[in-house]
Each structure stands twice: as structure tokens, then as C-alpha cells.
């Protein structure tokens, strides 16, 4: 890091925070603080939705995933456009018509206060725990890269978000996210462009040819396999339920489109998210492919997390690691020659030569992967830390191979992405705590000013909780893995409650309340006692709530009609 990097880093972050504070200083009502006066145009809604979903880990891990596993992760998003259409037809008009602050408020008008409170409780548990991870994951990576203590990176992200979310609420969140996403995508494309520029003698079209030949363009897999996380069926079915839950029942997203100036602006925001999300993920994944191609011609490190590698090299495992590194270097030397041959053969349309080189490269890649796996095991033995190297592929490439100034910009992007998703989550936690719990059940008759002030304190409280959780979580890796799937443990049940509310007029509040508790118990049992992929939890939870609610309502009706006959 050189002075120019620090100037760019602090300049970008400072501008975002100041812009957020200045542009939203007039938000002194609940309407202003929690839903931005419902004044946002559709493009701000759309960018805000996209920035909320794309956390720092999206921009750090997704290129690393493509580098390691190709582009099949894209299929995960195929259900998203379908979810956008369904929500535009169902949820958006209802939420807008009722002028709710939170999605859970609607459940009281449809059922009663206990169903609303249960849904708000589920949301607060899942989002309260995961906001800590939203702060923790980039804090850990940035602390590793910058050599800072994790407490410092956590406090940096948390305090910057606190400044503008407390000052300007939802409006500040939406307005800053618009520019954050523009800067993030601009910086990512710049990084991808530099990676491409550094690949010798290859046109952009030829990068597709090369990547396809070595098996990296595995975009669609039609084979139905429940144990395979990424195929078109899991994307369309499990993904549809996941995104219906996330965009329809998670206040972090509902709060974003409730800020739209009208039902039209909210709908267009969601529709354009449906149109743009998959291409955006394609671009991010393809940046990972360009980094992969760059490393076909430039020596890659055996382990991309250099801080962990350096620590391991100070232990007894150093000799073994050095030997593995030397073998990896030899493999790379041969791979570079074969890569040059493949590129030449593809350009000359020499299919026979291309096939020979391609087979050899795939073989060398497999050998290299074997060495990397052994190295990861050795590093784990040496340091006691599990190596999640995919998270470090892109950021290590940035730190090692990009020019100064751009490094500062890319680090600003990581901070910005962490801040934008954290801001939405804090705003959603605040809305739900303030409106569904505090205003509904604790202090019911105060004036607007009181609730705005309370909301600001609640935002501060959740932000401090997130930071404390992130610092605490850094000492317990198992905790992080458990918390990572907490969303899927509650989303299905939440979605079941909302689908019942939207579509099945027959079902009343007691039936859905009991069904939600049973549904949640089933999901928790599946999680504890089976190995089913967690993407399917959403479907199970949703189906259980709808199914049990129908059965319970039927039994209740029978009992009541039997009672009335007696």
C-alpha cells in the first residue's frame, strides 16, 4: 500500500459517508427515517436492492469461486427473475396499498398481532445474527490483507455505517447504495480489464474459447441431482423459494422497495433487478475466469492467503510446504508452455493440437489442485486455521498485480460493499424493532419525534451488537459456520406465513401461528438430523407451514361446527 492507495481509499469512503449524511439530513419523521419518505425513483430502488444483496463476500468470493470451480454458480440466480415477477404481482401492491413500514405489519392486518410478532421475532433472530457475519467476513479478510487487528477493521466498517444510517435512516441507505454499487461495479470491471490486459496475446473472444476448452464455462447443467448444489433445477426451484423469501419476507429487501415513490417505482425497481442480476453475476464470475487465465501465464501462489502462508512457513511444516511449492512451480512452468500452445492452436483452428494441449492442461490443473489441497492440509496442521483460499484469490491478485491507486480503489470497494449491505440490514432491524415491537407493544402512543429518536438509538444498538458479534465470532469458527445458514432456517417458515396470508383466505390466525411453530420445528429437525442441502430448507419450511395451516384450520372448523351443533 502506497500513499496514493490510502488517499483513494479514505477519499472514496469519506465521500460516501459525507454524501449520505448531507443528502438525508431532513429525515425527522418515521416516514422519512424508515422508508425514505417513499420518494425514491425506480433506478435508485433497483440499485439499492442489488447493493443490499451483494455483500463484500460476493465481490471477494465469487471471482475466487469461478477461478476454482468455473461458472456453474450462476445457476443459483436463475430463480430470481421468477421471484421478482411473482412479488410484483402479489406482495408489492399489498404492501403499498396498506402503506406499511415493515412486511410484518401486513400480517397483523391479515391475521393478528401474535402472527405479526412471531414473524418479526423470526426475522430479528435471523437478521440479527447474520448482520454480525456481514461485518465479520470482510473485516477478517481486510485485517489479513492490511495486517490490521480485526477489531480495527470491524470498528472501521461499523462506525462508518453508523454515521449515515443513524443520521439519515433509509434515505441515506438508498442514496449511498446507488453510488456504492456504481463504484463497486466500475472498480470490479477495471480489475477484470487489467487482468485481461495482462494476459499475453489473447483477444477477449479468445479468452472465452480458452476458458471453455479447459472446462471453466460450465454455465448450465440440466442433470437433476438433489445432492448437487448448482444445477438449473436447484437454481429454478430452490432458488425461487429462497428469493421469494428473501425479497418478499425479509425486511432488508422489503424496506428497499417500500422506499419507492409509487407502486410503479417499486415494481420497476424489482423488475430491473430481475433483468440485471444474472448478467451482473456473470460479469463478476467472468472476472474470476480472467484472473484464472492470468495465472495460466503468470506464476500463481500455492496458497493465496499470504498472511496464513507466512505464518505456516515459520513452523515445522515449512520444509514440506517449500517442497510442495517447488513442485507447483514445476507444474506451472509446463502449464505456461501448454497454455501458449493452446492459445496458438485455437487461433489457428488447429483442433488436433488444441485437444492435445487442452488435455495436458486439464491434467496439470488436477495435479496442481492436488498439491494445493495438500498444502491447505499442511497449513491447517501448522496454524490450526482452516484455509478458505477462494476468498483470497481475487484480493491477493489485486494486492499483488494491480497498479497503485487501483489497489486503494479496490479496497474501498470491499469496504463499500460491506457498508452497503450492513446499512440495509441495520435499517431493517431498526424498522422491525421500532415498528413491530417498540411502537406496537411497548410505547404505543408517543409522537413521531419520539419514535424517530428511539429508532436512532435502536440503530446504534444493533450496529454495536453487530460489531461485538463480529469480534466475538472471530474466536469461534464453528459458530460462524452455524450462523451462515441461519437465514435458511427461518426463511421457509416466514415465506409460508406470507404465502398463506396472500393466497389462502380460508386460513385464520391461530392455524397459521401453530403451523409456523410446527414448520420451524421441522426445519430445525431436518437441519439437526439430516444431511439435506440447506437450499431445500426454504421449500420444506414453506410447504410445512402451508400444509399444516390447512389441516389445522380444517380441524378447527370441524370442531367449531361440531360445537355449534351441540
Amino acid at each position, binding site marked *: 500500500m502506497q500513499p496514493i492507495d490510502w488517499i483513494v481509499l479514505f477519499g472514496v469512503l469519506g465521500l460516501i459517508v459525507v454524501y449520505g449524511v448531507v443528502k438525508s439530513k431532513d429525515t425527522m419523521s418515521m416516514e422519512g427515517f424508515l422508508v425514505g419518505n417513499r420518494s425514491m425513483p425506480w433506478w435508485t430502488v433497483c440499485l439499492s436492492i442489488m447493493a443490499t444483496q451483494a455483500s463484500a463476500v460476493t465481490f471477494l468470493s465469487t471471482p475466487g469461486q469461478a477461478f476454482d470451480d468455473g461458472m456453474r454458480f450462476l445457476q443459483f440466480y*436463475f430463480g430470481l*427473475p421468477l421471484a421478482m*415477477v411473482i412479488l410484483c404481482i402479489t406482495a408489492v401492491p399489498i404492501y403499498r396499498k396498506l402503506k406499511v413500514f415493515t412486511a410484518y405489519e401486513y400480517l397483523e392486518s391479515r391475521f393478528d398481532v401474535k402472527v405479526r410478532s412471531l414473524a418479526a421475532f423470526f426475522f430479528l433472530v435471523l437478521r440479527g445474527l447474520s448482520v454480525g457475519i456481514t461485518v465479520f467476513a470482510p473485516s477478517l479478510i481486510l485485517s489479513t490483507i492490511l495486517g490490521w487487528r480485526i477489531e480495527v477493521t470491524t470498528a472501521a466498517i461499523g462506525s462508518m455505517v453508523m454515521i449515515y444510517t443513524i443520521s439519515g435512516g433509509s434515505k441515506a441507505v438508498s442514496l449511498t447504495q446507488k453510488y456504492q454499487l456504481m463504484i463497486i461495479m466500475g472498480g470490479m470491471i477495471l480489475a477484470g480489464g487489467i487482468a485481461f490486459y495482462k494476459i499475453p496475446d489473447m483477444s477477449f473472444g479468445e479468452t472465452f474459447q480458452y476458458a471453455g476448452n479447459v472446462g471453466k464455462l460450465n454455465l448450465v447443467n440440466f442433470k437433476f441431482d438433489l445432492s448437487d448444489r448448482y444445477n438449473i433445477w436447484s437454481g429454478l426451484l430452490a432458488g425461487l423459494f429462497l428469493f421469494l423469501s428473501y425479497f418478499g419476507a425479509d425486511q432488508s429487501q422489503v424496506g428497499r422497495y417500500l422506499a419507492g415513490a*409509487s407502486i410503479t417505482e417499486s415494481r420497476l425497481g424489482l423488475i430491473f433487478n430481475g433483468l440485471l442480476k444474472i448478467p451482473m453475476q456473470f460479469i463478476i464470475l467472468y472476472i474470476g475466469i480472467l484472473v484464472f487465465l492470468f495465472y495460466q501465464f503468470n506464476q500463481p501462489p500455492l496458497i493465496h492467503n499470504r498472511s496464513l502462508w507466512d505464518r505456516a512457513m515459520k513452523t515445522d511444516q515449512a520444509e514440506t510446504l517449500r517442497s510442495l511449492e517447488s513442485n507447483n512451480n514445476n507444474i506451472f512452468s509446463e502449464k505456461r508452455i501448454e497454455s501458449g500452445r493452446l492459445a496458438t492452436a485455437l487461433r489457428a483452428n488447429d483442433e488436433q493440437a488444441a485437444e492435445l494441449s487442452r488435455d495436458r492442461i486439464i491434467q496439470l490443473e488436477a495435479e496442481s489442485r492436488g498439491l494445493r489441497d495438500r498444502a491447505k492440509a499442511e497449513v491447517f496442521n501448522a496454524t490450526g486455521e482452516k484455509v478458505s483460499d477462494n476468498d483470497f484469490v481475487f484480493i491477493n491478485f489485486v494486492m499483488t498485480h494491480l497498479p497503485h491507486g487501483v489497489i486503494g480503489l479496490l479496497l474501498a470497494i470491499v469496504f463499500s460493499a460491506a457498508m452497503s449491505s450492513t446499512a440495509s440490514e441495520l435499517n431493517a432491524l431498526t424498522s422491525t424493532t421500532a415498528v413491530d415491537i417498540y411502537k406496537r407493544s411497548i410505547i404505543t402512543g408517543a409522537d413521531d419525534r419520539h419514535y424517530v429518536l428511539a429508532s436512532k438509538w435502536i440503530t446504534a444498538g444493533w450496529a454495536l451488537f453487530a460489531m461485538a458479534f463480529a469480534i466475538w465470532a472471530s474466536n469461534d469458527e464453528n459458530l460462524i459456520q452455524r450462523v451462515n445458514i441461519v437465514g435458511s432456517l427461518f426463511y421457509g417458515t416466514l415465506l409460508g406465513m406470507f404465502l398463506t396470508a396472500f393466497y389462502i383466505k380460508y386460513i385464520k390466525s391461530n392455524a397459521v401461528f401453530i403451523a409456523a411453530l410446527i414448520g420451524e420445528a421441522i426445519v430445525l429437525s431436518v437441519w439437526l438430523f439430516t444431511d439435506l442441502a440447506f437450499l431445500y430448507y426454504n421449500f420444506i419450511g414453506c410447504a410445512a407451514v402451508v400444509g399444516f395451516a390447512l389441516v389445522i384450520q380444517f380441524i378447527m372448523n370441524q370442531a367449531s361446527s361440531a360445537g355449534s351443533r351441540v
Partner: protein
Amino acid sequence: MSVESPERPPAFKSWKGWYWLVLIVLIVQIIVYSLITNSF
């Protein structure tokens, strides 16, 4: 305070147009990505 704008969305006569657009773009993307996958 905001005022709800008219229901009619820009560019299409009804919302159905937008929904079809999203679905058609999704199908086109799946076809293009399948062609890319199968061409190597």
C-alpha cells in the same frame, strides 16, 4: 409526502408486458448459456 403515480408503467400498456420481458430475457439467457456450455 409522496403521491402514488398512475398505475400504467412506462413503455408497455400493462404490467404483463414487463413480466413477459423478464421471463423472455431469462429464457434467452438460459439458451445462450446452454449454447456456450455445450459448444466446448
